[in-house]
């Protein structure tokens, strides 16, 4: 009876779903039949999200809150777990993408062809559970523990194909970056402990600290959470990690884990009674900078998943700029700016959660079909993968922020925020609008390239010519996300209804006082009109030319022996813009020497470089590595001596404390 009463409480349902998600991979570890284990995991994932999502939406829209106290015998006091609108909002991505990816993995990463399937399935569930725990925990120590589980399960997922050197390298960079970020978080929560005297989170708007301390805390937040969210220049781990992970893992990492960084920033910001104005300035500038740099580097990529990863940096930059705009508005008492910034940022969070996993799933289907991530080795896939091609097109249009998809609606809010400032006394904030326009323009380069080179034209390799369509379990989540992307673009008020309660946590009163300057009906009207106009024109032209269409080869401009190799490649498509953007995008060109009277075949290849990593960070780290060589002697693999180290450290600490 008690059980049934508990189950009627949506908050408990959510907590149970979190636990269920964490356990979803367990049967797979013990069952001999790997396929059965994976199916059970998917069923568990779907069940957990079917339980959690309605409860989440009910609580979020109904304005419900809940908190639970876990009385643990641990030195950092009782742990609080709570569901407030901000937490509920950030749980939606987890319970949307986790089951979608789990379903997708049935076709993409099946036990039959992947020996690592058991561990991937297990850590996949664990990652979702840890992310949810991060979001619901209200205690610094519990938060950091969940954060570490999240970071480590992310690592184990990412190195699923650890036999490849590139994957191991990406894993190491990820591990270093996430631990540097984690260290910043440890310091952050330790400082909060010093201020409040408890590991429990301070209530929203209750923390009043001096300017110096606030500055320290802000930089710690930026280092700890900003590195997880991939804000430049803390993004170094992100591209290679997303590129080398299995695609459903990339979807979860990029679609959800980056947002946990955003959650962290918002949560800590919510503690403060007064937020200095310069925080907003820093976040806006860093966000817009990340957006421009991220998308410019994306336009030079020829690896389909690296391109998507860099575009995540762009999107997270846009979200940070929105948060910065909110802080600027909040600091100057400009309600309109604050409202549009925060609503735009949170709306864009939801949008990126929809279209980025959609694109990663599609990229996974393409890789599954062709066996390569290199755009220059694809082509003509639209005929062989018609459904994947269609959904990729939806995702590409959405992520470029074009109507009638959801990306446009959230960027519109940010544009309105920036534009509104043109009328104010400090119009320099309006300069964000042309920057966003530039970002939008370069995004079109990147995604026309991704779509056009991979799916259109003629196949460039035999593998691309024999590609096959993805299975039904892979297509179903993709189709769902594509529908959501269109819904968000036509009816943004549905998404804004989820955003509004979360805003109340950060700025009580704002969500009620400020109103949207644009009636949402215009989005629906514009979107539906363009779609209908296009449909009418299409049918008209089809009726006019249906019988008379003649099929012929593409006009080669007089050239009579065309081959698929003369098509524009991904590298050549981005090369023109790269040549304009100078040293920001470096491409290493390897070309063989032509020698002798009858030279052999020579190959030329382009490799876009991660300029910051290769030119700045790695050289510095190499020097540091030489300097620290003597420390390495401490690590020799003898466990008993390691235990001695621990004992000695403990003794020294005890002596120091007394």
């Amino acid at each position, binding site marked *: 009876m008690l059980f049934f009463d508990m189950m009627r409480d949506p908050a408990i349902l959510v907590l149970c779903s979190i636990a269920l998600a964490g356990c979803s991979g367990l049967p797979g570890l013990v069952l001999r039949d790997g396929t059965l284990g994976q199916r059970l995991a998917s069923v568990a994932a779907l069940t957990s999200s079917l339980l959690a999502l309605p409860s989440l939406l009910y609580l979020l829209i109904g304005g419900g809150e809940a908190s639970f106290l876990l009385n643990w015998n641990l030195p950092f006091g009782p742990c609080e777990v709570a569901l407030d609108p901000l937490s509920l909002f950030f749980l939606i991505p987890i319970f949307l993408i986790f089951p979608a990816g789990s379903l997708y993995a049935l076709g993409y990463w099946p036990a039959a062809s992947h020996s690592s399937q058991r561990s991937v399935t297990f850590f996949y569930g664990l990652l979702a559970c840890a992310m949810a725990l991060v979001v619901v925990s209200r205690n610094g120590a519990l938060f950091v523990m969940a954060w570490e589980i999240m970071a480590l399960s992310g690592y184990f997922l990412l190195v699923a194909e650890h036999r490849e050197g590139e994957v191991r390298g990406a894993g190491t960079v990820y591990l270093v970056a996430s631990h540097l970020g984690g260290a910043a978080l440890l310091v952050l929560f330790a400082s909060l402990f010093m201020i409040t005297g408890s590991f429990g989170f301070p209530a929203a708007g209750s923390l009043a600290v001096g300017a110096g301390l606030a500055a320290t805390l802000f930089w710690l937040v930026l280092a700890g959470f900003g590195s997880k969210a991939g804000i430049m220049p803390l993004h170094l781990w992100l591209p290679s990690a997303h590129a080398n992970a299995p695609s459903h893992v990339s979807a979860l990492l990029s679609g959800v884990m980056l947002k946990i960084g955003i959650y962290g920033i918002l949560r800590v910001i919510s503690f403060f009674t007064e937020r200095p104005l310069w925080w907003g300035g820093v976040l806006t500038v860093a966000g817009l900078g990340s957006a421009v740099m991220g998308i410019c580097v994306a336009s030079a990529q020829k690896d389909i998943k690296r391109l998507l990863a860099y575009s995540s940096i762009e999107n997270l930059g846009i979200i940070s700029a929105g948060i910065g705009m909110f802080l600027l508005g909040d600091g100057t008492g400009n309600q309109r700016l604050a409202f549009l910034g925060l609503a735009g940022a949170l709306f864009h969070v939801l949008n990126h959660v929809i279209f980025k996993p959609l694109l990663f799933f599609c990229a996974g289907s393409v890789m599954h079909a062709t066996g390569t991530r290199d755009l220059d080795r694809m082509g003509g896939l639209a005929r062989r993968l018609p459904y994947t091609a269609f959904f990729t097109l939806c995702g590409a249009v959405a992520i470029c922020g074009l109507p009638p998809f959801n990306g446009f609606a959230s960027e519109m809010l940010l544009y309105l925020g920036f534009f509104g400032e043109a009328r104010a006394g400090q119009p320099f904030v309006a300069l964000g609008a042309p920057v966003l326009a530039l970002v939008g323009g370069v995004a079109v380069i990147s995604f026309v390239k991704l779509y056009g080179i991979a799916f259109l034209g003629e196949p460039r390799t035999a593998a691309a010519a024999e590609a096959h369509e993805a299975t039904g379990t892979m297509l179903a989540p993709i189709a769902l996300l594509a529908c959501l992307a269109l819904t968000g673009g036509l009816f943004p008020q549905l998404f804004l209804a989820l955003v509004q309660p979360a805003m109340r946590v950060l700025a009580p009163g704002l969500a009620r006082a400020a109103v949207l300057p644009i009636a949402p009906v215009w989005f629906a009207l*514009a979107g539906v009109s363009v779609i209908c106009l296009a449909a009418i024109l299409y049918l008209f032209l089809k009726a006019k030319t249906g019988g008379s269409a003649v099929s012929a080869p593409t006009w080669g401009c007089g050239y009579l022996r065309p081959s698929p190799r003369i098509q524009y490649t991904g590298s050549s498509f981005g090369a023109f813009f790269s040549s304009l953007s100078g040293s920001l995008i470096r491409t290493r060109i390897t070309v063989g020497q032509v020698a002798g009277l009858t030279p052999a075949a020579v190959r030329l290849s382009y490799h876009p470089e991660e300029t910051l990593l290769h030119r700045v960070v790695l050289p510095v780290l190499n020097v540091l590595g030489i300097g620290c060589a003597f420390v390495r002697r401490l690590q020799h693999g003898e466990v008993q001596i390691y235990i001695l180290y621990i004992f000695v450290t403990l003794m020294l600490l005890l002596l120091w404390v007394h």
Partner: protein
Amino acid sequence: MIDTIFHVVLVLAMPPLLLGVIGKTKAAFAGRVGAPFLQPYYDMGRLMKKGIVLSDSTTWIFRAGPVVTLAATLFAALLVPLGKHPAPISFEGDMILFAYLFALGRFFTTTAALDTASSFEGMGAAREVSFSCLAEPTLFFALITLTRLSGTMSLTPMLQHVTLPVWMGTGASLILLLAGLFVVLLAENCRIPFDDPNTHLELTMIHEVMVLDHSGPYFCCVLYGAALKLYLLGALFVNIALPFASGNAYLDWVVFAAGMLLLAVAIGVVESVMARLRLIRVPQLLVAALILTAFSLVLVVR
């Protein structure tokens, strides 16, 4: 109501005439008689009657390209006011939708170009997207300046705010803004000095090379869409450049139409006296336009 009907009729019927006027102007400069003013209409009518040749490489995207582009441009046509008459659809932030509808069209035109597997069309598509991402911020700078001047964020009140007294007060800024917009107008509509709409097979081309494989009614859609885009961006320009209102509604339509024809003559003159720029100079000119509009903003802010 009558305004809306006038608006729709003008927007649907007038764009090809601009091409005719440009052609006639160029012919006059070259000492030729030139094709009749209505030649673009005849061309499009003939194209509508023709059959089509579809490349073996193409998919439905190839046919969707002109269709979506034209649909987006047609909707954008409802957002821009013509002269002193308000646009049929006007709301806060419509200028962002206006700009993004062109971007939607560009997305589909360039993907359709890549669908043909032709190296020339791929090249055109790459240039198109690269140049337009430099032209886009210029347009937004201009819109910010206008927002600052008018205090509104919708195209109709924003453009109708630019009257003679405003010109007297902030003429310098508006001239800079118009210069920037004119460059964007030429670049976005494949006019000399950025691109030559009359050459169909040269390596320096941008827009024209993307539509090499379109034929028949689909090519008609492409041409009409391009003319409409020229008309809409031209309307934006003329609304700022012609701050006169006669007071009589019908006379205002005539004034606006005359302004558009004058603009077409101006474009024809530019095309006659200039050569096409080298490709690497194009971004420099676009950036110069960007800086001009940025200056116009600085002048308004002070």
